[in-house]
């Protein structure tokens, strides 16, 4: 009855982030599903908290949007009051504190907080259970298992920026290919010592499918076992 539709908040996603020698790379998909209905293929799952902090969205879209905007407000207030920017560690810890307060209330968030501060570029994973982990590689969402497979295969700390972007795009593509709740377009952000840059605003995963198939010498229509004469 009423309850069913109300609990179908936007879920289902693949987001990933990893630290490498040029900074941090974030790559996300753009699909939002409400139950089995695709409510949007154009969602922005990287939230620009400020010029030096980015957050990724997984789980409940409203929860992520609201609390990351709350964090942005807090960071700005701190900057004005104290004359210096909040560190990534402190910003992520602030968010963790809020989520511990709402533990067991039904919030659903699996965010990555990535940013740059005086001590370098840092990547944290925060979720609604109150977990906060610092790490070099994270993938969050229903498609994360597929993304991890690709990431763990090719990840090295000394990747160049182009190699890292290629890796992120490929990992998201493979997740969207196998996870029904992930899809749409791939968006890529790069965090470096001067802040962040949007590398790709939206590469359609359908285009990537045929591009990668062509690289293997295939057509990409699933009929690869058939012998082709020309």
């Amino acid at each position, binding site marked *: *009855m*009423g309850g069913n539709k*109300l609990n179908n908040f*936007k879920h289902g996603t693949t987001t990933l982030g990893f630290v490498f020698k040029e900074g941090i790379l974030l790559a996300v998909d753009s699909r939002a599903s409400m139950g089995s209905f695709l409510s949007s293929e154009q*969602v922005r799952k990287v939230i620009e908290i400020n010029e030096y902090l980015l957050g990724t969205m997984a789980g409940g879209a*409203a929860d*992520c*949007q*609201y609390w990351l905007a709350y964090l942005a407000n807090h960071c700005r207030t701190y900057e004005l009051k104290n004359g210096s920017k909040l560190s990534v560690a402190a910003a992520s810890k602030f968010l963790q504190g809020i989520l511990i307060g709402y533990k067991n209330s039904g919030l659903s968030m699996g965010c990555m907080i990535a940013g740059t501060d005086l001590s370098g570029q840092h990547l944290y994973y925060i979720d609604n259970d109150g977990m906060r982990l610092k790490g070099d590689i994270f993938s969050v969402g229903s498609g994360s298992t597929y993304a991890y497979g690709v990431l763990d295969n090719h990840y090295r700390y000394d990747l160049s920026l182009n190699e890292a972007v290629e890796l992120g795009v490929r990992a998201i593509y493979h997740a969207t290919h196998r996870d029904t709740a992930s899809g749409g377009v791939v968006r890529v952000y790069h965090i470096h010592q001067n802040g962040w840059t949007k590398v790709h605003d939206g590469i359609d995963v359908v285009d990537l499918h045929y591009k990668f198939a062509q690289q293997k010498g295939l057509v990409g229509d699933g009929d690869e076992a058939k012998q082709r004469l020309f």
Partner: protein
Amino acid sequence: MYIPVNDMLKHFKQDAPAMANITHKSDQWSPYHDNSGTVLAVGIPGAVIVAGDTRLSNGYNILSRDATKLSQLTDKCVLATAGQYADFIALRKFLQQRLQLYEFQNEVQASTETVAHLLSRELYSRRFFPYYTFNLLAGLDENNHGVVYGYDAIGSYDQMTYGVQGSGQELVVAVLDNQLKGYNKINKTIPQTREEILDIILDCFSCAAERDIHTGDNVEILIITAAGTERIVKPLRKD
């Protein structure tokens, strides 16, 4: 202090009788009713078109054939809501009052982007006992181009070129994806003029009325431009 709705519902639960009469889950009172119907909005350069059917239903009963789902909040933006009518009225009242206060304090009407954010925060303020509303906020941006914001029940929102909410959502949005974006279309002709888009919207509602029992009676269309608001009402199937 937040009072999760599940706790509240416990007060209305009937005690199971000692004899073997099983109380079904549907006996439990729920604060939510789905009054259904369909709304859609399309943004184009220079205008935004918002449409909603006027049928108000509760299960298999039609409560009204003449209930509007659209609410003009400022000169430039309109709220279109599907879901529970009571929550739509409450939300509309809050927004109208808050925007009037904004106008008094700032001597200018709130921009569509501001209203969009205000709506998101109001919806999230009821995170643990949500407004049962599925909203579209359609309006003109600072350059007088049409924009549409789509929401879920607790306030997550995103800008889009068109949006559909309500019981006919699945039926109608697939048609709009094909007609307005050219998805899966072999002859890729995208409508260019406002009249073509209006025709598509009317067709969408006719289609929805055919296949969705909760959509019908009339379709009310508002066209917002910098020059003002135009209102069109067309009949739909009444069965």
